[in-house]
Every structure is written in structure tokens, then in C-alpha cells.
């Protein structure tokens, strides 16, 4: 079929409109949500799929969420397969990895079919982190959980709205299971509204351009995504690459990546059995980790759709940490998924030229603080990822203070918002001055945040990785700095943690979070001395480290002492 210039413009308009609709759903969800983790952190995602659940377009937000929604929709279709079971105006909810939820129970997916001419032509879907879905601890996420039943209410791909009418009984069950029922209700309506906005806009598109054109546009868009991916595949080195890496837990993760002319195969079968605790990633979650690396490599500037991932295949072993059996707990799935993402990235980094930089701080650094607000007495919960440093690359230094590759258009919480909402004091919000990550192109800097607790009976939970095993370097750079948290008690004693659950903290205690620097790229002795002088001026490196690690000697005025530097560098 040949398409005229006008057809091309129509198809392009439909494709771009789908992107705009995903973004509009994103804005609608963000702007009406009640939980700060949704509207401020943007721990959320939106997408449109075709009638079968293949990803057609996705909104902004978190790359790790982009791949969730198509899998959720496919599972909803599978589990509601009776004729007539899916009807116009319905909205389905799911949060359980065995029912299409992919991540953990806090992330609730809402999905709505879009009907035209009596058939389903598309789905609109969104996912957002609800602050509390019940379970054994406030915020629902615990390092101590042993079974999914301890992590909150499981929502198994069931109808929440039927033919446009909310199903009160389901909503009441959901609310009564949460410690924060008002927030849950607000966030739920925000998600429902977002799905409906998307449905309305898609129907407008179908009315304007006709059903056939609309469906064709979706198909061609996915074919185009596949072409882009296959074209990129031809430019990659072919072969089999493997990596084994020890984790902070002592477990050893293994990956084999086989790149051929028409396939990108990630083999994860040879990995440890599933965790008895909550450190598991669902098979779909493991697939998403591989999808993210695949996008990084093949179409870093593009938007993902189902077609992009056709050349990607992932093998897992049921019963393993990357494909656990039913009953497993998943609360900390995100650290497992980001470790896997980092593992595949590291496995390929030194083989792919300048496509991949050195390792980043590489942890979500999920931080949970809760308790009574000192002024209102109302319960507050912070659920926040942290920013840290990215690794250096062949061309340049890594970014400082930015979310990991797992997150994306995600925002940190401003001190002014945190103090108002949570009643904590943010005593400090600074770049981390610890050494680490030196290189010809150095790693970006992590941060130090200090929360001063203002009421008794608060709790602190965290689960950071890249703690004992630091961010990895490339080509002779130095390792980055670790992620950890300190609790400075009101009495002055200091405790250090990477993983802790529901630690009691009280008025006057300070929770001090350190996030790591990215790994360095290249030998520090090759770094441009002027760059080292600038780093010293900006307090990114001490004079002593400038001399001992970079071999750059600076004068009292901060200028490069050329002769002394040449001598220190052994030339």
C-alpha cells in the first residue's frame, strides 16, 4: 500500500495524538491525586494499548512503569474472558504480580476498555503508588514480610466500575483495608478520572479519522518501533556476553546476553532461588529490567511501544528470584529489578563503545518515614526515592543528584513541601562531599539529606543496595561512593543502616541519608588538570585528593601548578 503525503500526516497526527493523550492522562492523574508520592514524586505512569493490550503509547514518569501497563491489560483480558464480561464504561483494578500487577501491592493499576463499533479498540491504563494498602506495617512495605499476604490487600484484576457506575462494595473493601482511607479514595478517583479522560479523547480520534484509520495507525506505529529496534540491533556487536556479580546480600546474580542479527536474548535462568523475604521481582518485572536496557541501547531518544520489544527475549526459571512462585513477597521488588537492570547494563557496558556509561548509584534508595504530625497529630507517611550520582562516560562526567535510570521524569520532594506536609525539619539538603568516583570523567555526586524528627513514635524504613558493593567504574576509573543512612540519636549516638524496617525514631533524632557517587570512567591521572582545579574550587574534590588521586597540584590561589602536576603524574 502506498500512502500519500496527506495520509502520512493523518497517521502522524494520530500517533502524536496518542502521545498527547497519554500525557494528558498523566497530568489529570497528577493534578487530582492526594498522595504526595503521586503528585510530587510522580511515582506513576499512564499508557494506551491497542485492543489486545499491546503498548501503543505511554506518558511521562517512570521507565520501569512504562512496561507494566501492557502486561496488566493483557492479564485483565485473560482473567475476564467470559463473553460480555468486559463492557463499555468498565474500569478494572489490579495490583498483584500474579494478576497482572507486576510490581508490588502499593502500585495499583486501573484500566479501562475503549469501545467503538461494538468492539474494544484500545485500553487506557494508569498505575500509581498508593501510600497505604494495608499489610503488616504503615506504608505496607516491610523488609520483614515473608508472604504476599503480609503486604496488604490483593486486588486480583477485578471490576471497580461497571458500565460507568462505581461498585461500592469493592471500593469499601479497598478503603477499609488502608490506614489512609481518605487518601486511597482520592487517589483512586484521580486514577479513574485519568482513565476516562483518555477514553474520551480516543473516541474523539476514532470519530474524526474513522476506526480503520485509527487501528492502522496503531499497527504501523508498532511496526515502526520494531524497525527502529531491529535497525539498532544490526549496529551492535554480536556475540555472547556474561557477568556474575556478588550482591550486598552475598547472593551472586548471573546474566548471559546473546546478541544476534535478529534477537537480543537475556538468559537469567541460572540465578538463586526466590527470596524468603520481599526481595523478589516478578517475571514481568524482570522482563521490564531487560526492556529498559534494550531501550537505552537501541532507541535512547524514542518513546517505547510494543513493537520495540519484539526482538527481545528473556529466559527465567520459575521459582527463582527473577520469577518466583505464587505466595512470594514482593515489597522490595524495585531493588531486585534495579539490580538486574544494572547487572545487564554492566555486562554489556565495556562491549558497546560509548553507548553505556559507568555504573550509577544504582539504587531506588526508597525511604519511608511516618508517624504523627507534630502539629496536627494526623498520621503522615513519606515514601520517597532518592537522587544520586551517575557514572562517568567516554565523553563526560556523570550527572550529580539525579534519579536512577529506573526512574525518569520523577521529582524529588522540595524541603518546603516536606516540612509542611510531614512536619519534619529538613536540616540539610546538600551534595555529598565524600570521595569516590574519580576518573578521567568522574562520577556525578550523590546527596546528603537530613530529616530532623519532631514527634515521638515515628518510624524509619529503608532498603538501599550498592552499599558494600559500590557503584562500578569503567576503563580504570575509581568506584563510586556507597548508599546508606545514619540515625543520629538526640543523645548523640550514631547508627548506620542500609536496610532497616520500622526503626523507632523520636523527637530530636536526625535521619541522615547519603546517596552514592557514580563510578569513574578512565584513569584519574588522565583528567584535564583544569577540570580538577574547577572541581577543587567548587569543593567537589579536596586539595589532598586532587594531588593523591588525580596527580594535580594546585597553588594557594587554586590554579594548576603545571610543573608539580607533571611531576606528580610521573611525566
Amino acid at each position, binding site marked *: 500500500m502506498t500512502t500519500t503525503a496527506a495520509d502520512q500526516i493523518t497517521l502522524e497526527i494520530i500517533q*502524536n495524538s496518542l502521545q498527547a*493523550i497519554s500525557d494528558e492522562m498523566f497530568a489529570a492523574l497528577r493534578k487530582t491525586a492526594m498522595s504526595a508520592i503521586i503528585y510530587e514524586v510522580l511515582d506513576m505512569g499512564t499508557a494506551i494499548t491497542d485492543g489486545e493490550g499491546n503498548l501503543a503509547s505511554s506518558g511521562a514518569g517512570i521507565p520501569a512503569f512504562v512496561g507494566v501497563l501492557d502486561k496488566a491489560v493483557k492479564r485483565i483480558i485473560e482473567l475476564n474472558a467470559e463473553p460480555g464480561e468486559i463492557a463499555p464504561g468498565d474500569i478494572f483494578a489490579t495490583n498483584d504480580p500474579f494478576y497482572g500487577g507486576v510490581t508490588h501491592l502499593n502500585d495499583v493499576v486501573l484500566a479501562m476498555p475503549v469501545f467503538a463499533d461494538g468492539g474494544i479498540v484500545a485500553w487506557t491504563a494508569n498505575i500509581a503508588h498508593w501510600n497505604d494498602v494495608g499489610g503488616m506495617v504503615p506504608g505496607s512495605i516491610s523488609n520483614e514480610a515473608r508472604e504476599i499476604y503480609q503486604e496488604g490487600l490483593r486486588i486480583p484484576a477485578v471490576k471497580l466500575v461497571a458500565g460507568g457506575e462505581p461498585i461500592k462494595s469493592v471500593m469499601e473493601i479497598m478503603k477499609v483495608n488502608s490506614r489512609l482511607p481518605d487518601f486511597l479514595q482520592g487517589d483512586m478517583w484521580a486514577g479513574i478520572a485519568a482513565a476516562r479522560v483518555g477514553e474520551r479523547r480516543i473516541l474523539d480520534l476514532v470519530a474524526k479519522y474513522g476506526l480503520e484509520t485509527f487501528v492502522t495507525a496503531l499497527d504501523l506505529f508498532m511496526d515502526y518501533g520494531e524497525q527502529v529496534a531491529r535497525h539498532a540491533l544490526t549496529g551492535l556487536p554480536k556475540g555472547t556476553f556474561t557477568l556474575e556479580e556478588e550482591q550486598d546480600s552475598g547472593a551472586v546474580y548471573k546474566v548471559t546476553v546473546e546478541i544476534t542479527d535478529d534477537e537480543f536474548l537475556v538468559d537469567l535462568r541460572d540465578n538463586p532461588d526466590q527470596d524468603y523475604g520481599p526481595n523478589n521481582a516478578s517475571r514481568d518485572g524482570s522482563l521490564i529490567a531487560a526492556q529498559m536496557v534494550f531501550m537505552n541501547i537501541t532507541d535512547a*531518544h524514542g518513546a517505547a511501544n510494543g513493537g520495540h520489544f519484539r526482538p527481545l527475549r528473556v529466559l527465567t526459571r520459575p521459582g527463582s528470584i527473577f520469577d518466583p512462585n505464587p505466595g512470594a513477597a514482593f515489597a522490595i521488588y524495585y531493588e531486585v529489578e534495579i539490580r538486574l537492570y544494572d547487572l545487564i547494563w554492566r555486562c554489556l557496558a565495556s562491549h558497546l563503545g560509548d553507548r553505556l556509561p559507568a555504573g550509577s548509584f544504582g539504587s531506588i534508595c526508597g525511604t519511608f518515614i511516618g508517624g504523627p504530625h507534630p502539629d496536627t497529630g494526623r498520621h503522615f507517611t513519606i515514601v520517597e526515592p532518592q537522587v544520586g550520582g551517575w557514572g562517568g*562516560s567516554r565523553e563526560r562526567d556523570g550527572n550529580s*543528584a539525579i534519579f536512577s535510570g529506573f526512574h525518569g521524569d520523577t521529582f524529588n520532594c522540595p524541603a518546603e513541601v516536606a516540612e*509542611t506536609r510531614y512536619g519534619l525539619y529538613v536540616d540539610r539538603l546538600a551534595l555529598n562531599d565524600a570521595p569516590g568516583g574519580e576518573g578521567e570523567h568522574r562520577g556525578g555526586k550523590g546527596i546528603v539529606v537530613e530529616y530532623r524528627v519532631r514527634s515521638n513514635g515515628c518510624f524509619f524504613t529503608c532498603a538501599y543496595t550498592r552499599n558494600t558493593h559500590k557503584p562500578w567504574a569503567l576503563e580504570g576509573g575509581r568506584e563510586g561512593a556507597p548508599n546508606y543512612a545514619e540515625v543520629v540519636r538526640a543523645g548523640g549516638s550514631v547508627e548506620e543502616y542500609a536496610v532497616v524496617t520500622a526503626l523507632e525514631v523520636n523527637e530530636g533524632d536526625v535521619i541522615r541519608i547519603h546517596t552514592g557517587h557514580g563510578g569513574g570512567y578512565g584513569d584519574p591521572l588522565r583528567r584535564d588538570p583544569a577540570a580538577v582545579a574547577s572541581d577543587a574550587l567548587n569543593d567537589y574534590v579536596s586539595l589532598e585528593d586532587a594531588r593523591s588521586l588525580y596527580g594535580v597540584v594546585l597553588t594557594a590561589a587554586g590554579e594548576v601548578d603545571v610543573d608539580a602536576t607533571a611531576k606528580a603524574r610521573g611525566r
Partner: protein
Amino acid sequence: MGRYRVSMDIGGTFTDVVAYDEESGAYAAGKASTTPNDLTEGVFAGLAQVIESPAEIAFTVHGTTVGLNAFLQRKGEKVLLLATEGAGDAYHIARGNRLRLYDLHYRKPEPLVPRSDIVEISGRLNYRGEERAPLDEGAVRAAAARVAEEGFGAVAISFLFSYLNPAHELRAAEILQEELDGVTISLSHRVAREWREYERTSSSVLEAYTAPVIRRYIERLQSEMRDRGLSVPLHVMQSSGGVVTADSARERPLQTLLSGPVGGTMGLVALARTLDRPNLIGVDMGGTSFDVSLVIGGKPDITTETSLEGLPLLMPIANIHTIGAGGGSLAYTEAGGLRVGPESAGADPGPACYGRGGTRPTVTDANLVLNRIDPDTFAGGTMSLYPEHAQEAVRSLGAELRLDAVEMAEGIIDVINAKMAQAIRTLTVEQGIEPRDFALVAFGGAGPMHAAFLAQELGIGEVIVPRLPGAFSAWGMLETEIRRDFSRTFFRRAGTADLAELASLLAELESEGREALEAEGIPAGACRVEHAIDMRYEAQEYTLTIPIDAADAPVAEGFLEEMTQRFNAAHDFRYGHSNPGAPVEFVAVRSAALGDLERLEPEAIAAAGGDLRSRTHDVTFDRRRCETMVVDRRGLAAGATIPGPVIVEEGTATTVVPPGCILTVDAFGFLIVSIGKDL
């Protein structure tokens, strides 16, 4: 008393001046080369073309891009940033987000102030604005000493919670003023009285960085105008689309940062009203840049927050998408392919045909080679062009690609048109907006020459060329109102809010607004103040702005019920759901003081009898030489209909109507081009 209202728009290449004669109702436009070393020289050269004596001028308004250019070229002032102790790195940490989700080579935007130029000052407020620790005045004095020693020209002060209580920022500014002279001080709470320290800091750093440049420029312009006997107050266009006096603009220079192109957007609004076409895409193509803006349903597309090269700016601003494409865009080869722009030949040396030493071909040179520009009548005959230089420049580039000069020239035009069409798609198609539902308004010196081709590419059926297209942004500035915006935090649960307190707050804003308008020279009878309040459901973050009928409305019976109902309806309209019965809160009140400057309606032109001065030229369209009628716009009567190809010339622009399109002239003298399917 003078009889002219005058507007001045200084672009990268040309300075445009428009004068409206209040006695005759006629407009006149002048154009001069922008004089980068002394911009007022260009302004007065343009003025001299339309007005005999500055004493005849009753009102002046001005739009400028000097601040924006200083930012884009990173040639702003050296800024020292004072921040709250413990939070000095907030400006470098930023928000941690990135727009390109899968790009591991993404670069965070480079802050305007290096880490070494940020000074932490102790002194702390809590989230209610109450003092936890006093301001360290000694540290502020020490910072002042550093400013003097190291030659900082500006200081930005951004303390935590200053949006609630500005006392520490105000005191620090007072100390700096005692210690320093002639240093710009930007206070975050004045720039943007909103929470989120990073965005507020970024906004105030942007102000500190650009304000001295803008202020110096306005002062110089004011004094030059006085020197030349022009005594009426100067007005400056704001990014929001309203105007303020120059004195007021010097106080708040940031508001003028994007004021140049906004004149065009306001011109579109006026045009939408006059021509009864609510949806317009405006394309402004000058010498160096191509700006796209929209009017949807008769209203300008305005946002409350924007970012410049990734740095956030909290400020109401017309949504304008700009790319580097203009008559001066340079054509060159790269990797065996043809590229055009974004680099521009600028005003000096300018295109090869200007004969000022430029040897590389530009878009203007290509149009000249195709005969779409007549060298004898360009810019109303005020500028001499050298076609042989254009020929030579285009021919020698063509030789690299084995094309003759005409083929090369058409190639240059095709490439630049495709780039501009893509820029229009960015603001329309990519936002889910269908360009076919719009008419394309072409202005700027080069816009009307390219518009028909862009319309065809986008499936747009109609191109409108306003009168004085080369000076449309300047014309638009005459079509706007004086506008001053005020806001106050009013963070209360609606159910328990003291409505008498709200009424007195509105009364205060109302009198503040009227005073401000008075200071802008607006008579009381022409002033009005519009009030609104930001509302949301409790625990939501984002608000909707709901209009309040009058300052005393809150004390009237049923106010709360009325506002809650309006909010629910607005929420339902915007987001598709509402939650009647759920508690609602107020967040901030916003008042806009508007001074009516009496709208100017374009006069109708003669229906017939104009003397159609025409001649014919051979012009190249699609590789073919076509005999093409060339007419002088002054001779076109209302109702005239001419099939393309035809070229319409006037002082500030040239309109090209390709074969297959039809030109008509409406009652107001606007050129309407119906676009054929195949050019």
C-alpha cells in the same frame, strides 16, 4: 499633545516601528537594521521614517529580547546566590528529573551560578513562616564584602519559606543596599511568591542574571528618548501579554524577558476578534528566528510556568515555540547533505546580497535567485541589494552538490520550509491539536514569503497576511492592555475561612491594583480589577483558579456555596470528575489590574478604484519559470481576487502566492490566500 501611538520591536536583525495616527486612524510602519552596539540608534532610524518630530508622540510601547539574548548567549551578569544554611546545594541538586526517559547520556541543565558562588546564610523559618533561627546579619555583610571584592553585578536571595514570610530576604536586601551601590538584588519572594525552593531560586537567579542587562537597556532607551525630545512615558511589553510602564518594568525586569515575540501573539488575539476566526496559528519569520504561537478560541495560549533551556521560570508567559530559521539562516553542506540554519548571518554581515561582505548563501539569497524578491523594491526600496552576490554565493554552494543555482536555491527553500513545518507540528500535532482547524497568520519580514508552502505541507486551507506584516509584533503591542498581576497566599479550609478577612484582602489588592494602574498613568475610569482564587480539594496539590465576581462578593449571602459549586463544576469540566461534599480549601488569591488603552480597530480600505500598479517577472516555482504578476499592496482594493502566481510587495514584506493558490483582499485590506492542493 501628540497624535501618534508608537510601538517599537527590536529583533535580532531588524527594528520595526509602528505608528498609529489617532486623528486619521491610519497606521504606518518603519524598519531599520538593528544596531547591536547602540539599539536606540536603530529605533530612532525607524521612527524617523514614520514621524516627523518626537513631539507628535502621545504613547510609546516597546518589546525587547535583550534579556533573553543575554541569557541564551550566557552573557548575563555575574551572580552571587545567598541561600539558607544547609540548603545551598538545592539549586544544583534541582529536582532530579529528566525528560528523556531512556537516555543515559542525558545532561542536566547547567546552572547559571557555579557552586563556588553560592553562600549559605544561617537563619531559618518554619513552614508557618515563624522564625526558628535569626538571620545571621554578619554573614550577609561578609557576602556583601565578597560582592564588592569579586565584582559581582547582581545578588539573588532565595531563603526557605520566604513565600510565607519575606522578613529575612527583606532584611538581607536592606543590608546589601547599605553596603553596596549599583548592584542588582533579586528576592525570590518578589519574583515568584510560591513554594518549592528550587523553582523559586531558579526564577530569582534568572532575574538577577538578566535584570541588569534589561535595566541598563531600558534606562538608556528612556534617556535617549528624553534627549530627543520625547517626554511621554515608555511602556514595555510583558511576557504575559500585557504592558507596564518602563519604570515599573525596571522594578520587575524579569516580566519583560520574553516580551519581543509576545507582541505577535497579542496581535493574533486582536486579529481573531477582527476577522472572526477564533483559531489562529501565528508564524513570525524574521531574519534569525521563526516563532510559532497559537490563539485557540480567541484566547492566547498562556502558561504559568515555563523553562528556559531546562531552567524553570515561574511566571505567566505566552506559549511560543522558537527555532533558528529566518531569512538570514545560512545554508551549508554537511556529510554530503544540505543543511540550512540554525546559524544566521545576522544583521552584520547579513545575507550575501546585502553586499556587506557575507559570502555564504542564506534563505534570502535563495529567494532572490528565484526572483521571489525584487532587489529594487526590497524593504520598500530603502535597502540596496546585490543580486550578483546572491547568485555567486548560491552557485558556489550548488557546485559542491552538483546543482545549478536555481536548483540549489529551491533546495534551500525546501529544507527551511520543512523545518518550519515541523516547528508548527510541535505546538499543534504533538499536543493533539489539528492544524487543519486553524488559519495560518504569516508575519515578520520573511513569513509571508514562505507561508503558502507551509500551509500546503500541513493541510491548512488559508493563509492570512495582516497589514504591515513586517511590523506585526509591533502592531500587536498597540492592541493590548496595561496589566499588573498581584497575588497573596490565603491558605484556609473553605468551610472555616473568615470571609470578611477574604473580602478585606481583596479590597486591599483592589486598591493596590488601582494605585498601580494610576502609577502607570491610567485614568480611574479606564481601570478594572479582576479577582480570582485558587481552590482545591483538601490534600490535593494542584489548584484551579476560580473567578470571584467582585472584591466584596465574599461577604454576600451564599458566597461559599457559590464558589464551591463553581469549583466542582470546573473540576468536573477539566478532569472529568468532581467530589461534591468533599472539603475544599483556598490557597491563594490572584488579582489582575487591567488598564484599558482603547482598542484600535483597523480602518476599512477602499472597495475599488485603487490604482493596481503591476508588472510581471519570471519567478521560479517547482523548477519552472512562471510569468508572475507583481503588485504593490497599496493598489489592492477590497474584494480583489487574483489567481496565483502573484507576488505582493509592500514596505515591510513580500507575500508569495504560488500557482494554484488564490489571493483575495478583504474589507480591512488583509490578504487572504486560499491554498490549492498542489502547488
